[in-house]
């Protein structure tokens, strides 16, 4: 009984994956490209930087980068707080 159930789940998952693979869009043609086009057209004059990736990371999505930096800050302060006692007097 459990085997039959497992086989049924396996087969239905495979069929689902195959159906999803058939209905994929062709490579290089995303459905909504307006935002990409906007970044490529306007990033140089708005953010005044040649590197569009950096202008997205630090300007258009700056709040996300602030969160990443906060994660790193929390990790470092946690490690230092836990291990400062063992590492000698400094830091």
């Amino acid at each position: 009984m459990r085997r039959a159930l497992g086989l049924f789940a396996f087969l239905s998952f495979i069929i689902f994956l195959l159906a999803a693979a058939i209905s994929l869009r062709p490579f290089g043609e995303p459905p909504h490209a307006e935002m990409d086009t906007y970044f490529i057209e306007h990033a140089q004059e708005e953010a005044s930087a040649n590197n569009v990736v950096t202008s997205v990371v630090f300007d258009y999505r700056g709040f996300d980068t602030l969160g990443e930096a906060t994660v790193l800050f929390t990790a470092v302060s946690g490690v230092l707080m836990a291990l400062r006692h063992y590492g000698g007097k400094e830091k």
Partner: protein
Amino acid sequence: MTTTIIRTTTKILAPLILVFGSYIILHGHLTPGGGFQGGAVFASGLALLIVANNKEKVKELFDKVPLSQLESLGALGFLGIGALGLMGYTFLKNVIANSDFLFGAPTPKGINPGYLNTGGTLSYLNIFVGTKVLAGLTSIVLIFFLILRRERDEW
């Protein structure tokens, strides 16, 4: 632990790695990379310097380096540059771009060789994030090194 090979290689490689890390941080708005990546490269150079020396030398070298203060300075600098955008705009708005301030020159549209004096707040944020990442990673490596190099009777 530290053999002659490691010490000789470090003497040649460490300055190059440190310079390359600073280059990645400073040119974050022109070339691939940025604050996080450059800070990690710089921290790997400092980690090489840490593992190539013995404990007393490391303690003497890093006793005067304010790593925790640098880390906090990076975080506060990021928030401060972000708060600059609140002068009439939104948080983290690029107010320095196209404003003739330092790093504020306009970028010509299209293909150009890349000028260092551009980028607006991007350059400042790259520098602050780089400071923060290099201080954080270096302090983690340093504290693990100091723990592993302790004498047995010090526990």
